């Protein structure tokens, strides 16, 4: 089981992801520079958080033209598991591997704190070890996490059960006060139609071991490993 973690100029969570895959899960894992076109035989590709290309123009807009993205795109279309975290999610949106777009947070501020999310879909390779409706706490740190898409696209995402996480309060209610950025319908994470590509704004990589005070994110990585083992 091998993870490839893509490093764009400006990525800053690549080492966190590498640590989770390698040291916590005991998997093989390798960093892949954005100029490479080779995922080094990995079974799972992670686009980590950060500020690829300084978020110039729009978050993720320039990163999607990196040579490695052609490979990631082909890998995703072939059913490969791809996880985009925060900036990685923004890159997946700009690359068209997931639908929709990010606007600036409605409060116009960078928001860095823990949020609660309800697990809406446990049928993806990255969420199969969670229970449906489970409320998990994960940290966010972003300026553009205000997810939006055309109403018919949002309806389709709901219908096809592709909303994976929603911001919620402690009792799991999706209410506006629990929404840190204004995202449409409280959406924190979504999946591709086949489920193999998942993107989310919160950081499972920053809460994957007890020493950090929270290991709620670890199951996302373990889920992927379990999903591949079950194939």
């Amino acid at each position, binding site marked *: 089981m091998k993870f490839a973690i893509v490093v764009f100029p400006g990525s800053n969570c690549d080492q966190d992801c590498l640590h989770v895959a390698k040291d916590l899960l005991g998997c093989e894992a390798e960093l892949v520079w954005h100029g490479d076109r080779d995922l080094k035989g990995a079974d799972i590709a992670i686009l980590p958080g950060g500020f690829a290309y300084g978020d110039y*123009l*729009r978050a993720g*807009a320039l990163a999607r*033209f990196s040579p490695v993205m052609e490979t990631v795109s082909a890998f995703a279309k072939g059913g490969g598991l791809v996880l985009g975290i925060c900036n990685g999610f923004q890159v997946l949106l*700009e690359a068209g591997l997931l*639908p*929709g*777009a990010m*606007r*600036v*947070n*409605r*409060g*116009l501020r960078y928001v860095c704190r823990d949020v609660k999310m309800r697990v809406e879909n446990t049928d993806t390779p990255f969420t199969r070890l969670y229970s449906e409706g489970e409320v998990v706490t994960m940290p966010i740190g972003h300026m553009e996490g*205000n997810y*939006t*898409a*055309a109403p018919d696209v949002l309806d389709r995402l709901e219908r096809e059960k592709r909303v994976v996480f929603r911001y919620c309060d402690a009792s799991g209610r999706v209410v506006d006060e629990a929404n840190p950025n*204004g995202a449409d319908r409280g959406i924190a994470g979504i999946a591709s139609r086949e489920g193999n590509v998942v993107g989310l704004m919160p950081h499972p990589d920053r809460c994957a071991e007890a020493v950090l005070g929270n290991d709620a994110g670890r199951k996302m990585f373990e889920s992927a490993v379990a999903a591949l083992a079950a194939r």
Partner: protein
Amino acid sequence: MKVEVRVYPKEGVLDPQGKAIAAALGRLGHRAVRDVRAGKVFFIEVEGKDAKAAEADAKKMAEELLANTVIEGFDVRIVP
């Protein structure tokens, strides 16, 4: 030749920056301000003399990169 591409939030798409600017203008006493939408302008210098071709090319640039057409509209004009 110079081409100008304007990119702005589509009508109906929430624009938090525009809203904040509108509120600030109101506080400064510009009471007539009803709404603001904030966008970007790109001044692009291109080679060649064919304005039509430059315009078509700039449109392609906007669709491919300059605008995210999920949330943004754009227009293109040749700067005389």
